[in-house]
C-alpha cells in the first residue's frame, strides 16, 4: 500500500499553518487495501477488494475539542481548510471540557512491518483445490494496513501492518465443525495446507452421536479459545478506569476488593507484543505493559487520557479497553489436560457470551465447535450444544484447579469498519465445576 509516511509528514508540515492562535490540530489516518474471499462449501461466495483511507481531524482551542472524519484521496491536504472552518463553528458552540487531554510532547516514530499486496488468485486456487472434498466456510483477507498521526505540534507517527489470513471452519455432514485460524508467516511460505490437515484430524474426533449432559455442574477444561469468549465480556468495560469509577464495570467487585481470583491468576495488558499501533488518537505514548490482576487481586485499571484527568492516574491506554490481554500460564501441560480432566467437559470453544449477572461477573455462553464429553481422560463423544452460566470469580477463583503451561495467541479477526488489531494470549483452564443450564 501506499505507505502513509509521506502523507503523515506532509500533514505534519501543513497543520501548523492551518492552526489558528491557540489552536491545536491532530490528524489520525487509517488506510487499507484488502482483498477478501468469502467461502462456503469450499467454493467462492463473494470475492472483492476494499480500498479505504480516512482521516479524523481533532481541533482544540485548549478549552474544548471537536472531531470530524472523512474519506480522503490524493487531494487530502486540500480538504483540510474547509473542514477546519466548520469545526471552528462547532468549537465555538462547545462548552469547556475539563477532561480534554491531547499529547503535548511531539515525536517522530515509524513502526510495524510492511505488507506488500499480492495476487490472491493462486493462493486461493491452491486452497480450494486442497479443500475440494471438504466443506470449508470462512473468509480470507489479504492486504496492507497503515495508521498514522500528525499534529500541528509536530507529531509524525506511523505504523504499518497487514497480512494474509484465513478464518474458517471445516464442517462434517452432520454439522459438527472445527475452526481454522491461520495467518501467513512473515518469513516462509503462505501455505495453509498443514492447518487444513490438522483441522481434518480434529474433525474426525467429532464423529459419533452427540452427547447432551443434563443440566448440572461438571468438571471442565476450557481451552484458550473457550476462555477468550468468557473473558471477552470484560474487554468492553471491565478494566476501564472510567467504567470502574462510574459503576459500569463487570469487575466492580474486583476493584472494590470484595472479590478476587485465584492467587495464580495474573492478567496484564501487554501492548509491546501487539501488532496494534503504539500510539493513540490523542498522540500519547502508551506503556508496553500494565498489570491488571496480580496474584488474583486488582492491579491497575486502564486509564485513558480523559480518565486520567477525570479520576486521576497515569495514562496507560487509548480507550480503556485492552488490546493485548495476557493471562499467565500455569503448570498443567496441555498434553495432560484430558487426563487431568478425568471425567467431564472439554470445551474447545464457546460462543455468544454475555453477562447474566454483572454484579457477580456471571457469564452465560453456548458451546460451539470442538467440545467433547470426556470419561476417564478419553474423549467419548462430541457434545450437543449446551448453555453454561458461571461466575468468572468462581471459574478463575475457588473452582480453578490449574492453568495450562502453554498459551495460545488469539488474534482479533474482526473486521467491522476495518481489520482489527490486537490479540489475547491465554492458557487453558481446568475447573472443578462448571454449571450447565440448558
Amino acid at each position, binding site marked *: 500500500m501506499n505507505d502513509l509516511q509521506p502523507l503523515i509528514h506532509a500533514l505534519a508540515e501543513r497543520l501548523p499553518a492551518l492552526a489558528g492562535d491557540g489552536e491545536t490540530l491532530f490528524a489520525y489516518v487509517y488506510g487499507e487495501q484488502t482483498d477478501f474471499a468469502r467461502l*462456503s462449501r469450499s467454493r467462492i461466495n463473494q470475492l472483492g477488494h476494499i480500498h479505504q483511507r480516512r482521516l479524523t481531524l481533532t481541533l482544540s482551542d485548549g478549552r474544548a475539542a471537536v472531531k470530524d472524519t472523512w474519506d480522503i484521496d490524493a487531494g487530502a491536504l486540500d480538504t483540510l481548510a474547509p473542514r477546519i472552518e466548520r469545526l471552528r463553528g462547532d468549537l465555538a*458552540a462547545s462548552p469547556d471540557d475539563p477532561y480534554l487531554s491531547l499529547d503535548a510532547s511531539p515525536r517522530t516514530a515509524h513502526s510495524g512491518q510492511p505488507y506488500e499486496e499480492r495476487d*490472491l488468485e493462486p493462493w486461493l486456487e491452491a486452497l480450494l483445490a486442497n479443500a475440494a472434498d471438504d466443506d470449508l466456510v470462512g473468509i480470507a483477507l489479504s492486504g496492507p494496513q497503515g495508521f498514522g498521526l500528525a499534529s500541528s505540534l509536530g507529531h509524525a507517527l506511523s505504523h504499518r501492518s497487514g497480512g494474509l489470513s484465513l478464518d474458517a471452519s471445516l464442517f462434517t455432514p452432520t454439522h459438527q465443525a472445527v475452526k481454522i485460524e491461520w495467518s501467513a508467516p512473515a518469513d516462509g511460505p503462505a501455505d495453509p495446507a498443514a492447518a487444513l490437515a490438522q483441522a481434518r484430524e480434529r474433525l474426525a474426533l467429532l464423529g459419533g452421536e452427540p452427547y447432551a449432559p443434563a443440566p448440572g455442574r461438571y468438571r471442565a477444561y476450557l481451552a484458550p479459545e473457550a476462555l477468550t469468549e468468557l473473558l471477552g465480556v470484560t474487554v468492553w468495560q471491565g478494566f476501564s478506569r472510567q467504567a470502574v469509577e462510574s*459503576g459500569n464495570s463487570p469487575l466492580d467487585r474486583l476493584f472494590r476488593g470484595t472479590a478476587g481470583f485465584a492467587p495464580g491468576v495474573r492478567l496484564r495488558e501487554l501492548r509491546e507484543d501487539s501488532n496494534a499501533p503504539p500510539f493513540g488518537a490523542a498522540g500519547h505514548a502508551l506503556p508496553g505493559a500494565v498489570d491488571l490482576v496480580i496474584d488474583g487481586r486488582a492491579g491497575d485499571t486502564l486509564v485513558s487520557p480523559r480518565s486520567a484527568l477525570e479520576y486521576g492516574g497515569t495514562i496507560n491506554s487509548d480507550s480503556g479497553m485492552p488490546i493485548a490481554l495476557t493471562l499467565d500460564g500455569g503448570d498443567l501441560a496441555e498434553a495432560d489436560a484430558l487426563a487431568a480432566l478425568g471425567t467431564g467437559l472439554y470445551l474447545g470453544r464457546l460462543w455468544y457470551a*454475555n*453477562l447474566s449477572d454483572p454484579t457477580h461477573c456471571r457469564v452465560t455462553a453456548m458451546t460451539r465447535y470442538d467440545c467433547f464429553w470426556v470419561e476417564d481422560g478419553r474423549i467419548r463423544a462430541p457434545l450437543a450444544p449446551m448453555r453454561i452460566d458461571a461466575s468468572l470469580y468462581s471459574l478463575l477463583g475457588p473452582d480453578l484447579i490449574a492453568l495450562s503451561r502453554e498459551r495460545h495467541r488469539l488474534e482479533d479477526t474482526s*473486521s467491522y469498519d476495518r481489520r482489527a488489531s490486537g490479540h489475547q494470549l491465554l492458557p487453558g483452564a481446568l475447573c472443578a465445576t462448571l454449571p450447565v443450564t440448558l
Partner: protein
Amino acid sequence: MNTPHAQYGNDLEAIARRARDLLAGTARWRVLVEQTDTLGCLVRRGVLQPPERSARRAVLITVEERGALGYGATTDLSADGLAQAAKRARRMAAVLPDRRLGAGLPADATDPVPAFVEPWADHVDMTLAERIEWLHDLEIAMAIDDRIHSRAALLETTRRERVLLDQSGREQRQVWRLCQAGLRAVAVGADGNQWRSHGHSFQGPATPEQLAALDFTRERAAALSRDALALLDAPECPTGTRDLILLPEQMTLQIHESIGHPLELDRILGDERNYAGWSFVRPEDFGTLQYGSPQLNVLFAPDELGEFASYACDDEGLPARRTHLIRDGLLERPLGGARSAARAGLEPVACTRATSALRPPIDRMANLNIAPGEQSLGELIGGVEHGVLLGQNRSWSIDQRREKFQFGCEWGRLIEDGELQGLVRNPNYRGRTLPFWHSLDGVGGADTFQVLGLGNCGKGEPNQSIGVGHASPACRFRGIEVFGGAA
C-alpha cells in the same frame, strides 16, 4: 451557519454515472454510491465529550461474469480511484469461475420502482448548540442522588444518501434521516450496581418535539435514576417456572435473535457458519413449519413510517414490499434477497443490504415486526397467576443455530393472581425457540405497540454492523424458566 449536515444534490448521481461509464462493454454490472453524514454528541456526568462528525463517501462497483460476481469498493472517488475499483471488480469477477457458489446479479428490473419520498425533507435537525443544551438538560435531570455515579445522554443523527444504477436501467436514489438517542443512569450500592436506560433508534428529524414524543423528557430522565436506585434495594428475581409478559423493549431482542436471524436465507444456506452461525430452519420448512402459536404474525415491513430500517428498495435494487414471514404461526417465507432466493429456488423479499458501500450486500433483517392483537396490558397481566413482567433488555445470548437462548432485563415486576407486585432485579429467562413461540398466548393491542430499533446488528464476513427495526406489542408467554442474580 451551524448546519449539522451538508446536502449533495446531484453530486452522487454524477459520481455514479462516472463509475457507470467506466463499465462500458460490461454486460452485467451495478454501481452503488453512498454518502453518510453523522453528528454524535454525548454528555456524561455533566461534561460534553468532544462532538464527532463524520462524512463517509464510497462507491461499490459489482461486476458479473459468467454468473460470478466481483466487487470493487473504494473511498477514492477520483477518476483514478473509480477506474481502479472498476478494474478490481472486473478482475475479481473473472477469478476461478469454476469454483463459485453460483447466483449473480438480480434479474433485470421489470417492476416500476416506487418513488421514495423523504417525509422529513423540510425538517431541520437541532443545531449543535441546541443538541448540547438538550443533552445537558436531560443529563442533569438524572442527578437526583449521590449514589447515581454515572449519567449519560447521547444523540446521534445520520443523513444517508444512496444512488444505485445497474445495466438493466435501475436508477434509484434514496435518502434517510436516522436518529439514535439514549439515556442511562447507574446507581452504585453497597453490594452491587444497577442501571436503567431508555433508548430509541428511528427515522426522522432530531427535534425536541419528536424526541419528547418518544419520552426523552426530564421527567423520564429523573425516573430512570429513581428506578435504578429502587433496583439497588429490590430482591433478586426468583428462580422457577413462571409466565412471562415481555414489554416491547424486550420483545425487540426476542424477535431479533429467535425469529429474525434464523430466517435469514443466506444463514439457512450455510453462508454464515464460520461467524454468525447457521439456522435450525431448513428450506423445506417454508409453508410447513408451525413456528409458533396461531397468535404469532410476523411481518417484513419496509414501509413502516419512521421505523429505523424503512426503505423503498434494497441494495440490489429490488422494490421492498410489506409481506408476512409468519402468518398465524405458520412459517411462510424467509428473509432472502434475490441472490439467496435464486440459490434456494424461493421467492425473494427485498432484504439484501450493505452497511456501507465498503461491504457487499447480504441478507439482513430490515423492519421485522409482530402484528398487534387485541388485549390491553391490563388484560395480559390479569391472565397471569404466577408470573413476571419484564422491561428493558440488558443481555442476550443464543446458540449458533438459533435454538437455545437466554435474555436478561434491567428490571421486572412479579405478577401474582393477575396483579402486579413488587420490583425484582437481575431478571433473566432462558428457553428454546420453537417451544417459546408456541407458548405465546396473549398479544397486546395497538395501545401496547411500540416501534423500536437496534442500531448495531453484526453479521457477515468481512463483518458488517447495520441498523434494524423491530415493532411489537407486549406479549405473554406461558411456563418459562426465569432466574435472578447470584454468586
